[in-house]
């Protein structure tokens, strides 16, 4: 395996040793997983969503299992940017794997405030702008479903930092491509596609929704075909790297996303199923590379594309 080249480039400042990133909210801030050797295989870690002020998060129940997936409504529980920048970031120093901070906000000012506080923090390899978390009430969602708002918040954050800026798309929209283009126009260095799909489940005994928040974000293998389509269409429409997210359970799944047009792949829910998810998925990618006889992971890319029914519409 030694001679395989697994590195991928998101930006000149964000070149990853492997194409795998731990997805935000599924890896905390990296500390618990470090204890169990869970960093293995990852080219980058993405932190839990971080806000200006600490958030206690939603009432439980916060998660529910559904077929081939799970719903979550954590409510962005996090200690706030002060703790992340002042206490956590310095401790990332000794890690080989770079950490990208996922940021959330209720307003453009909030987002900018988080980024500005992070500017003075060490070991922040990049910013992932979460404009798509479906779990926090009103404002949190709107940026991601409207091209204008998405452009505005991206532009504001862009002007607040020179660090690699990844914007994470919400799939709960009619026309993902036009929103993606607006975000790229606003200066995003890369896109993550996609966040969770809004869903719910009800309890037959009580007749009420299972999650205290009523709705939750659907993740896991159930959404993989939907995320693949999102990556396929967006990667064909924009010039910047697309980082896939949605239902990766194996190296083959990661390869499927690379074939769909992704440059790197996030692993989320699988971290809950296997503390060695990063290494498990990476080994699967390496096995595939050996099967098909490619030395560089960059060689796993889309076959010349056919027009998708969806693209045709647009």
């Amino acid at each position, binding site marked *: 395996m030694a001679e395989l080249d697994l590195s991928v480039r998101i930006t000149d400042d964000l070149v990853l*040793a*492997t194409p795998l990133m731990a997805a935000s*909210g*599924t*890896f*905390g801030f990296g500390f*618990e*997983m470090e*204890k*169990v*050797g*869970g*960093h*293995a*295989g*990852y080219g980058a870690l993405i932190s*839990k969503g971080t806000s200006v002020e600490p958030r*206690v*998060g939603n*009432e*439980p*129940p*916060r*998660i*529910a*299992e*559904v*077929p*081939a*997936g*799970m719903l*979550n409504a*954590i409510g962005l*529980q996090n200690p706030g940017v002060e703790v992340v920048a002042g206490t956590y970031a310095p401790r990332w120093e000794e890690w*080989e*794997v770079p950490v990208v901070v996922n940021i959330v906000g209720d307003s453009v000012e909030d987002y900018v405030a988080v980024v500005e506080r992070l500017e003075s923090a060490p070991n922040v390899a990049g910013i992932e702008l979460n404009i798509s978390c479906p779990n926090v009430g009103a404002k949190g969602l709107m940026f991601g479903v409207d091209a204008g708002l998405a452009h505005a918040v991206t532009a504001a954050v862009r002007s607040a930092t020179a660090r690699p800026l990844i914007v994470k798309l919400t799939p709960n929209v009619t026309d993902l491509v036009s929103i993606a283009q607006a975000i790229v126009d606003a200066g995003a260095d890369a896109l993550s596609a996609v966040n969770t799909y809004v869903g719910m489940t009800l*309890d*037959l*005994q*009580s007749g009420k929704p*299972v999650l*205290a928040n009523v709705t939750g974000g659907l993740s*896991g*293998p*159930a959404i993989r075909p939907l995320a693949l389509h999102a990556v396929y269409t967006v990667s064909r429409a924009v010039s910047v790297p697309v980082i896939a997210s949605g239902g990766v*359970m194996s190296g083959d799944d990661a390869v499927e996303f690379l074939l769909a047009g992704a440059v790197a792949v996030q692993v989320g*829910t699988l*971290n*809950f*199923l*296997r*503390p*060695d998810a990063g*290494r498990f998925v*990476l080994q699967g990618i390496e096995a595939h590379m050996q099967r098909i006889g490619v030395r560089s992971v960059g060689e796993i890319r889309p076959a010349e594309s056919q027009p998708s029914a969806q693209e045709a519409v647009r």
Partner: protein
Amino acid sequence: MSATATLSPGLLERGVVSLREEVMPGVWKLRLHSPRISALGRPGQFVHIQCAQAADPLLRRPFSFCDINPAAGTYDILFNVTGQGTAILAAAEAGQAFEALGPLGRPFTIPDHGTLLAVAGGLGVAPFPLVARFAAERGVRFRWLNGAYTANQLFPVDQLPGAVEARLATEDGSAGLRGRVTELVRAELQEATMIHACGPTPMLSALADILFDHGGSAPPCEMSLEAPMGCALGTCLGCVVPSTDGGYARVCVEGAVMDWRTVDWIRLAAMGELIHHRTPPSRVGADVKVGD
């Protein structure tokens, strides 16, 4: 490079089924050969078991150590069938393997003297055989309060290691006191050096009320809590219960065994049932033994 890092010993191990036994009607004991986990497990800790290989059911299932035999390299879990995951486990045969994460969570604190009062309701009995074993080893007196709806749902006292002083309660009065196990507690508080409790949330919260009434004079009490779990490692923040600091505590790392004062029982009560069972597998016929 990091790809060579390894998991902390024992965290991820395949357990091979060596015994399956119906201990009480509908309650199964599964013995898994899993040397590393069995060497490390402590009373009140749990394992997170992957029941299926396919994408459904997706999540692991948490189970307390019921008993452990480190010499034999085995641990037992005790469970009833409430859905897809436990149905798979209840159908497991000798030789079949399940991958488990563990040992996880905070254990019960075993006192080194005096009297340990164990309060168990329903399947809350699960962790106590191992607790009793540790208590016996330390020469600690083990008082066993077990409540259930009816007699045959009480855990067989003879299956608890060591010298056990048992007091029982059944709601239908078919054995011991007619009523709830918590009604047995008050009379025991004086003698108790420490209390360990595990059972349905209403039982734990009734116990918390009793302890609250006794204020400073109440003995220290540790309770094993339940919440739906994703990671069981502290990262997903899915398994929380409200804590007295106004925020939330993660059952998987701040628990499953917690000091009863960590939990905000008023907020918890207001939240209603945290546990919801899924619709069982819908398609009959496949992949089942005839007769099952």
